[in-house]
């Protein structure tokens, strides 16, 4: 059969200002989607708009600003039900018979609760604290905390004498300290490039926080960052061995992901290069399939067994985290996870990103992280087990404002993925699954990977952590708080604007002015 004529039209229009164009062909070289071409005979540049994904790489790198990438103003016939996106999806499926794939997080206009929450500040009755002059503490300990301190006075037992040292006598549970409540989320080598993973780990180390390997194994060269690395154990078990587990600061069992709850992963064989195959411990060129469920976890008691198997494997020296997607009944599930022995519960919300997911899943499954977080924190407190696990949340955090509100809703720390990508070039073109990322972030083609200089990318990432941490300190100081633990779950510092009563109840916050 001859190729089918497509009924779609270009989403973007490439406009080139010929007065400015110097024929340098940077656009031709930079575009990985074959949009630009140069005809030497005519000394002219051409663009195939149909191929453009709107990643803006050419626009950013054009030395004379001759390029403008414009969203195609052509609309489908006005229809409140059938928007252009719906038409295009149907047309693409009619032409291919396949599932429509996409990358990054849900881009639909679900209510973003962060934008409906406002923070408090000190006025008169207590002083705001200036972080430029006063200490401001962001250090956070992740892991299961003992119920209480058991200790004795040195020499005299549990007496009341003063001055003699007090010695805690219980064994502390394994904990991991991070210097800011921000970590890099799980993004696997294969789904992201070698250089991207390198930059993430380097920045995490420089700032005293954590980067997560994702489920694609951990290249041996990056073990030098092991003090700042979380390893993931997902349903495909790629790259998992005893050394992998024991080199990490903590181990995360990935049950679900916010972008695609209930769905596994599929790294196509083309992306399984020699290096990827070694890291994942699978044959070169073979598809890497992560099943939808873990085939050894069909229930909560199975999860408990896996948690303890991993604890055995790491001699009870490392916290074990369990990551789930935010779904209905998330608070009951989280409670079960804590009771199954997890030391950290990770919840990934509706807007969490991905390298590849069926679009229909990404856009329709799961619940917003704000509601999930508030409910889980509240539930664990009601059950008196909040201290038994740290709560880490993920899913579309755009600014330090979102992060600090999450802390006030009860999060111990926040995973950032999309924001980290944006910091190193990503423009959310959502084409990660094609392996063509022009920014070198998610592609594994050697000529594109090298575009992302790990030194420069690590610097940008470290800057982002620093900038957000500074902003968090400013906001904390404004509230008269000098340690992040005093904001954790402290909903009195939040008020809602423009929410329904049920939403405020779910979040556990009052309306503004009350």
């Amino acid at each position: 059969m001859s190729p089918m004529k497509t009924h779609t039209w270009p989403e973007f229009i490439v406009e080139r200002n010929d007065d400015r164009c110097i024929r340098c062909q940077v656009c031709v070289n930079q575009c990985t989607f074959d949009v630009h071409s140069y005809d030497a005979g005519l000394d002219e540049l051409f663009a195939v708009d149909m191929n453009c994904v709107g990643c803006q790489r050419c626009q950013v790198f054009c030395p004379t600003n001759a390029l403008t990438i414009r969203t195609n103003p052509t609309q489908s016939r006005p229809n409140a039900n059938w928007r252009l996106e719906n038409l295009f999806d149907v047309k693409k499926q009619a032409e291919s018979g396949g599932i429509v794939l996409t990358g990054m997080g849900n881009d639909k206009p679900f209510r973003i609760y962060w934008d409906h929450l406002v923070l408090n500040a000190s006025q008169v009755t207590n002083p705001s604290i200036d972080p430029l002059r006063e200490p401001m503490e962001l250090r956070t300990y992740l892991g299961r905390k003992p119920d209480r301190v058991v200790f004795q006075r040195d020499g005299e037992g549990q007496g009341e004498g003063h001055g003699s040292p007090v010695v805690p006598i219980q064994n502390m549970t394994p904990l991991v300290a991070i210097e800011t409540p921000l970590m890099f989320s799980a993004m696997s080598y294969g789904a992201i490039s070698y250089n991207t993973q390198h930059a993430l780990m380097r920045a995490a180390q420089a700032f005293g926080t954590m980067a997560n390997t994702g489920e694609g194994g951990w290249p041996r060269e990056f073990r030098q960052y092991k003090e700042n690395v979380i390893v993931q154990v997902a349903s495909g078990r790629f790259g998992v061995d005893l050394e992998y587990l024991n080199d990490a600061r903590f181990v995360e069992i990935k049950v679900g992901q916010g972008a695609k709850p209930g769905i596994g992963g599929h790294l196509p064989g083309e992306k399984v290069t020699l290096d990827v195959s070694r890291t994942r411990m699978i044959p070169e060129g073979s598809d890497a399939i992560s099943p939808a469920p873990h085939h050894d976890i069909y229930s909560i008691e199975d999860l408990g067994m896996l948690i303890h198997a991993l604890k055995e494997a790491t001699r009870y020296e490392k916290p074990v985290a369990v990551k789930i997607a935010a779904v209905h009944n998330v608070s009951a599930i989280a409670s079960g996870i804590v009771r199954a022995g997890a030391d950290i519960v990770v919840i990934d919300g509706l807007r969490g990103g991905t390298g590849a997911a069926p679009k229909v899943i990404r856009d329709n499954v799961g619940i917003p992280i704000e509601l999930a977080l508030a409910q889980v924190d509240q539930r664990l407190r009601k059950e008196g087990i909040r201290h038994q696990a740290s709560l880490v949340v993920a899913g579309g955090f755009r600014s330090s404002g979102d992060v600090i509100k999450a802390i006030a809703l009860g999060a111990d720390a926040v995973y950032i993925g999309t924001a980290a990508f944006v910091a190193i070039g990503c423009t959310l073109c959502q084409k990660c699954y094609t392996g063509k990322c022009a920014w070198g972030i998610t592609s594994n083609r050697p000529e594109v990977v090298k575009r992302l200089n790990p030194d420069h990318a690590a610097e940008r990432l470290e800057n982002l952590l620093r900038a957000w941490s500074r902003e968090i300190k400013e906001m904390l100081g404004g509230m008269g708080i000098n340690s992040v633990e005093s904001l954790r779950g402290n909903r009195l510092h939040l008020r809602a604007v423009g929410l329904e009563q049920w939403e405020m109840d779910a979040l556990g916050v009052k309306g503004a002015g009350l």
Partner: protein
Amino acid sequence: MYDLGKKQNPYGDDKLHDACGIFAVMSRSGRTFSGEIPIRAMENMHDRGNGLGGGYAAYGIYPGWPHLYAFHMMFEHKSAKAETEKYLHQFFSSMDGEEIPTRPHPGISSAPILYRYFLGPNHHLLNGLSEDDFVVQRVMHINQKIDGAFVFSSGKNMGVFKAVGHTEDVGRFYRLEDYEAYCWTAHSRFPTNTQAWWGGAHPFSTLDWTVVHNGEISSYGSNRNFLEMHGYYCTMHTDTEVITYAVDLLARRHGLPIDMVCKVMAPPLWRDIDRMPKAEKDLYTTLRVIYGPLLMNGPFSIVLAHQGEMIALGDRIRLRPLVAAEKDDAVYIASEEAPIRLVEPKLDRVWIPKGGEPVIVRLDDAAMAIAHPEGRSAVK
């Protein structure tokens, strides 16, 4: 049900704001001071309060009844008193009651009925509870269930005197110059939004523990969450309530020594912990990791007292004033230096305690044996 929350917090605010002046004095050897001392000191700090509440806690004032629980009570009407006395008769075997002596004072109006009782628990009814826990339950019942009745304090050989008014007027109203105590703590209130209520003045007390507090705790929500997880329900919406419960959880239920309790509420900074020798580093890391939610953030200075011990503590970056001074066997604590110099011009030493460094004063053993022959209550 007697809705204390409503009385205390008529507008349903998240929490009540307070600013204040505090003064305390204690002799290590059990030497006593007349109530005139704290009255004059509080008068000197008149402007730190706004006349909406003042009070005193006095330790060692009932040397004749060191074995009996002294209930200082207010009743808004006679039936509350009758109902309370009926209730007390059920649970206590020995019981003496009298009106708390007062004098008319132009600064104090609308006084409730003020009574004190000296009570010994009926041992047949303890049901395995300690006497102290038994008494705490009775106090909770009276405060929550008997309309118009409120227990100011319920410890042995001590008492709380408080009222709506300027603190020096409150002292003179209660004729405190007639009392001799080895330890006094005093407080003047400047509430920003509470309507005046006698029970809402400081000191706040359970058993023989009293708290006077100046500050605003910005970590209130986090502190309350943690305490609720441990079964404390914060109905008064005040910082002082949270501090009291935190001390009860840490000191009584978890058995932390009082200096460690202070280190939970005002812990060293991480950057200082990082530089400590290993043993200390482990200790403070453990305390902060486990009890981080009880860190009292924001400005405060507090004076805690119980039988034979007084503890003054300021927040760790010293956002509220706290001055300490020493003269012979006596230690003075106040929001300002002036009132201390007023009542004791010749001091051996005056200092400003470091943020988070508690000043702990204890009765020596001989004095303790006289004032509190049964030793400290179960509340350690």
